[in-house]
């Protein structure tokens, strides 16, 4: 009894303490769980994560996401850029989406979206819901407006801002949206040789280089302002700056704190050279190659050459993968890319001649020595704008759509994405 009376309170106390600890533990667990849920709820659907090694990852719905994409502009034979393919009752994206999914493509990029277009919304929704394909939406920022892109003019800026914010407002809640791209190769206008624009202050400056810097500051400041405004209405998606090569990005670095991603348009042939490290040094943001690729027409031999296209694309993707996050020796700042482009566009070579929209023109529009197989073509013009698709289109119709014929690049990339063989590290 004595023993029992002595032991009982101790046992009792011990059991009591156990209960307290257990309750406390449960409470702690609940708190951690609630905090976790709240934090997760706070995170945007799509965001950039900077890793401890200073590499960048794109996080989509809580998971890392490598952009394996294509620029999507499925203009049918006989139509030109003004054709609204999203309103096509034959819904070509359903065929395309299936083919894309089979190849491992998870993203498409639109250069522009029709304003308040419910068809486009449906297209985005269909691709995401049926095939898990996400969409990058771009805006030209009035680059092709007539009489010119007057970025120094406040009224012009306001007009563009309204267009951009309307677009964001209309599409932002679509679950398939990945991010926004502002501009394309608009920076090439800074030198005054293409789509020139100016202001009184710029005209007063006699030094052409300084004029360029002035234009860059005006334009990039405007883009940053747009990014800031977009984030106010859509915190769920990053904002990218579309840029031709890396030209002028040192200026963007000074005036674009609100830009999350750099989207580069690059045509450097077999690889991207020092692009990834150069970007790190000039404007340290994650990089998406929003336009790159190779055409499938040999302008020298004057015949289609699917192998040539596949060769360049495979090599380009190998380098993209070398520079993704956590690749030990890469720059770690690449998030992926969108190939130019999904299907051929037959209107491009001579857009003023409507009859030529129904002809697959073999004329080359510009020269690029990095695509060396056919650089000896007349006048060194070797880039055939109508032959960039990794999928060819046939004049023959199936259910109202031009029949899709995947090129070799499609298959080569499909295999690459299944098993991206990266070069093994040299062993010391």
């Amino acid at each position: 009894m004595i023993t029992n009376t002595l032991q009982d309170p101790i046992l009792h106390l011990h059991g009591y303490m156990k209960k307290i600890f257990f309750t406390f533990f449960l409470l702690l667990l609940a708190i951690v769980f609630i905090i976790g849920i709240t934090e997760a709820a706070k995170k945007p659907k799509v965001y950039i994560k900077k890793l401890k090694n200073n590499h960048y990852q794109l996080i989509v719905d809580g998971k890392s996401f490598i952009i394996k994409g294509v620029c999507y502009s499925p203009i049918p034979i006989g139509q030109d850029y003004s054709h609204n393919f999203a309103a096509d009752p034959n819904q070509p994206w359903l065929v395309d989406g299936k083919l894309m999914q089979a190849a491992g493509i998870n993203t498409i990029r639109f250069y522009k979206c029709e304003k308040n277009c419910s068809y486009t919304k449906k297209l985005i929704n269909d691709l995401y819901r049926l095939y898990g394909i996400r969409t990058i939406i771009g805006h030209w920022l009035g680059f092709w407006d007539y009489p010119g892109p007057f970025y120094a003019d406040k009224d012009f800026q306001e007009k563009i801002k309204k267009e951009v914010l309307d677009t964001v407002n209309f599409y932002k809640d679509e679950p398939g949206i990945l991010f926004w791209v502002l501009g394309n190769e608009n920076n090439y206008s800074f030198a005054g040789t293409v789509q020139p624009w100016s202001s009184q202050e710029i005209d007063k400056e006699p030094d052409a280089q300084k004029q360029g810097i002035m234009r860059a500051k005006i334009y990039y400041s405007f883009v940053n302002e747009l990014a800031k405004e977009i984030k106010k209405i859509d915190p769920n998606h990053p904002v990218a700056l579309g840029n031709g090569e890396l030209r002028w990005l040192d200026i963007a670095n000074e005036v674009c704190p609100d830009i999350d991603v750099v989207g580069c348009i690059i045509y450097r042939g077999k690889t991207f050279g020092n692009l990834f490290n150069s970007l790190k040094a000039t404007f340290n943001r994650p990089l998406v190659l929003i336009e790159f690729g190779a055409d499938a027409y040999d302008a020298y031999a004057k015949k289609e050459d699917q192998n040539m296209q596949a060769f360049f694309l495979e090599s380009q993707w190998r380098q993209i993968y070398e520079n993704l996050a956590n690749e030990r020796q890469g720059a770690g700042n690449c998030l992926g890319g969108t190939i130019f482009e999904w299907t051929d566009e037959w209107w491009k070579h001579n857009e003023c001649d409507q009859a030529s929209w129904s002809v697959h023109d073999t004329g080359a529009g510009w020269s690029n020595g990095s695509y060396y197989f056919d650089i000896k073509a007349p006048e060194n013009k070797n880039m055939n704008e109508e032959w960039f698709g990794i999928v060819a289109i046939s004049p023959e119709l199936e259910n109202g759509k031009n029949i899709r014929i995947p090129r070799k690049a499609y298959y080569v990339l499909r295999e690459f994405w299944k098993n991206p063989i990266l070069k093994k590290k040299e062993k010391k």
Partner: protein
Amino acid sequence: MNKSQIPNPKSQTIHKSQFLNSKLSVCNLWFVICNLFVIWCLVLGIFPLFAQDNLETLKDKYFSEHKYADFTDYLKQARKKNPKVEAETSYYIALTRYNQLKYLEESQNWDEYFSSGNDYRDELVAQASNTVNLTSPQDSLNLYAHCLLWQFHKDQQDVFAEDALKALMSSVEEYAGKKEDLRPIKYIADKLYSYGNKSESKKLYGIYADKLLKTETKEGELKKAAEETFALGNISLSTIIYDSYINKIVKAYPKEKSLPILLTIAKSFSYKDEGRSDADYAEKIFKKIEEIAGASSALDEEASYIRAYNLEKAKVYPGSRDKYTTLINRFPDSTHYEEALYKCGIITAYILKDIDRGSEFFAKLAKNPTISSYVISSIYQLGLLSQWRKDFPKAKEYYSRLMELTANGFGDTRKLTQERLKELEKDGEIEYNLKTFLGASLKENFDMSKIDLKASPYKVLKDKDTKISANTPFPESGCMNVEVTYLWSGHLGTSSTPANQPEFTTSYQYTGTKEINLVVMTPSGILEESIDMADVE
């Protein structure tokens, strides 16, 4: 050579029968002997001593027939038989894969490229790395393997290229500190040079030249080495060896003996329409000559002209004008006197933008009582500058004088003058191309060296063709075409109105120096402008 002549490890019996075949040619016999020697080396285990040279020979044979897979199999078998040769065979397997990938791309053998390309790449890196690991930097094979890895990464333009270059350079430097054999250093320096890695190749050429100096103490040998590399087109190495040679002779010889040697070197490097030259290096030697001689009078008339002309073609215009002025002052009876004076006028007025001083040169020449193409051209320039300055009466006076003097010749300048006179008859407004050039060159601040404007050849015979071409650096514009207009003017020869193209071919019917003007326009204005001079002899 047919397929059966190449040893295939899977068909050794064929080799034996080949050996026994009495109809074997001498070449075939030699090839089989070579193979047998490799096998003998393998058996005796002395492969590493001899194998590399023999494998080189075998490699050449296999590569010439693009039998890369066969050679790889052969090497793998050799390694199996004698593991001591692992380093050598690994290197050659890597080298084979490297060449195989290049060949698949060149020959556009895409099926194999896409199906096996990644495997070959992996094997290349693994085997070359294996050689690096199995050898020390004192072994030339180690250097070659490093070099191959760097070449591979450089070709791929991948992220490993920078590290591979660092590893290569440090291993070469380590090797150079301990070994006397210069061949691997030269080989790697040449490779770096061919890939455009100029600073690294220069560094290695420096090491090579230093070692060469230690072993080749005779000046004659050094001179021979410098001349040979120059003749082979390796200007970078040649200048390094010449520097060492010059240092040596300057110290060893009195200036009476060293100066003529230096002058010969300077002339050989001076600009020429055909053959090798390095205008900058030539000028460096000319300066050295002046330094040693203690005065600019060290150069005779011909050398003075060569120096001025060399600077003109290097587009070092202020220097060129100074040297032409020196020639004018020191050699007033020179056969190049008028040419020098005229060129001084052109450079001063249009490039250095000093119209008054430029006009003085032209005026001096215009006073010459003996009529020549230079005198005529100078009068034309004086008229043109007056017209541009809106001094029409003065312009007309010059042009009229020119018309009087050229009644029986100088048709090209006469024709230009007639055009100017017609303009004066109207409102004096100069035609668009020429007016744009004058406006840009006399008023604006363009850097004339930006356009690579040239004539090929510069010194052209009467009625013979010369190609005028302009390479303009355009601002980047992606896939958007920049609309460019080429405005040519001046003495353009028979092709007096070339189409709006960056190049054209022309010929001249009259001797003298012909100025060629170019303005490159974009829709937003003048992009660049330039002037050049061809000499018709």
